[in-house]
């Protein structure tokens, strides 16, 4: 069965109220076409897990502006004033997480780990409500894994089996999120034949990808 489907078909998997991971860093590596399709379809009450909320008019920031998000788990909202505005108005819940912790939480979610100990956040408000564990005289926070119903990924090159190659700084959270969700949809900037990506250079193995949608202009 081919993984290559229409945007419509792929988005049948995304329902109101779901938890969604979106790859990218300030718009770079966001699956732009999928985001536009979510806006068009008007899917709402989403919980978004992403590095940041991008910009009001770029990438996943548009979902915030369009009020389709009820909660964001992220490391940074400074570039999208609309996120802060909705947070202050009590319209959108924002959970701020140190970037390295967020990356590691997503990784742990995909890697079957029950959690990990990080020194990041010790002595700050990030430690509130978390278990502290001392190892060799140093304090760490026990951080828990994060998973999502769906991960929306942007691949620079994707082969027809679903192997993904990310160009330059588009990689960021994409390969981590591709491992940490029940369903994974990748937007292929360039769809290539199997074999065109050298097996050594595959950054997300095909086994993680459920659906491929075309992202070419």
């Amino acid at each position: 069965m081919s993984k290559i489907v229409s945007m419509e078909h792929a988005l049948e998997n995304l329902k109101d109220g779901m938890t969604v991971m979106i790859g990218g860093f300030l718009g770079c590596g966001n699956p732009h076409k999928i985001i536009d399709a979510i806006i068009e379809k008007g899917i709402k009450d989403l919980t978004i897990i992403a590095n940041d909320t991008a910009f009001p008019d770029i990438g996943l920031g548009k979902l915030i502006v369009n009020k389709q998000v009820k909660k964001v788990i992220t490391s940074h909202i400074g570039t999208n004033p609309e996120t802060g505005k909705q947070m202050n108005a009590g319209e959108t819940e924002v959970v701020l997480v140190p970037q390295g912790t967020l990356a590691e939480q997503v990784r742990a979610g995909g890697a079957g780990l029950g959690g990990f100990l990080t020194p990041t956040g010790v002595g700050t408000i990030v430690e509130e409500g978390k278990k502290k564990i001392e190892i060799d005289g140093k304090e760490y926070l026990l951080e828990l894994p994060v998973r999502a119903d769906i991960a929306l990924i942007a691949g620079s090159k994707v082969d027809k089996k679903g192997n993904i190659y990310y160009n330059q700084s588009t990689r960021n959270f994409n390969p981590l999120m591709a491992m940490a969700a029940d369903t994974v949809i990748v937007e292929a900037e360039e769809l290539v034949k199997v074999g065109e990506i050298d097996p050594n250079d595959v950054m997300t193995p095909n086994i993680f990808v459920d659906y491929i949608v075309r992202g070419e202009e």
Partner: protein
Amino acid sequence: MDKNKIKEIIAKRVAKELKDGDVVNLGIGLPTMVANYIPDDIDVIFQSENGFVGLGTAPNEGEENKDLTNAGGQYVTIKPGAAFFDSATSFSIIRGGHVDATILGALQVDEKGNLANWMIPGKMVPGMGGAMDLVVGAKKVIVAMTHTAKGNPKILKECNLPLTAAGQVNLIVTEMAVIKVTDEGLVLMELGPEATIDDVKAATDADLIISDNLRKMDVD
């Protein structure tokens, strides 16, 4: 002093802290300017926490590459020998002590080396981004900032804004002073081009120990 001159002094002085082969992460804003003052004969490797080492200069106009941005979302270039990786690896590098120095701005720093630079409750909550990991993980944490904000001291006895990290700052560089964080407290090591000891004391809320080797900042 005008704003640009202040920034130049700080960036020039911070640049002198970096050695050949150092892996360095520069925060957004003023710290970014440090890259402009690295001597040609030393090779500093800049890390961009969104996923690479070997960060270069800004691209020429018209040569921007949509797939190549820095942690501030700006178009950048890479140097020969650069390497890309994912965010988990990026923060393994940071948290794992593989970054020699992180240079970042501050809202407040205090006598214990505590740093606050990520939020002002009720006013500005951009989020911590990668700052908390950087400050905990980098071997050397250098705060590069103007000495005061609207005339108010930023170097305090104790931070009252939410902390980015506790006790991690090693060095503070402002247009007025270079201050080392030690177990004994803050030590004034160098004076800015136009500052006296009294000027620095007046602009600083924290207690300062005056170094026996106090000297003028070298910002040539």
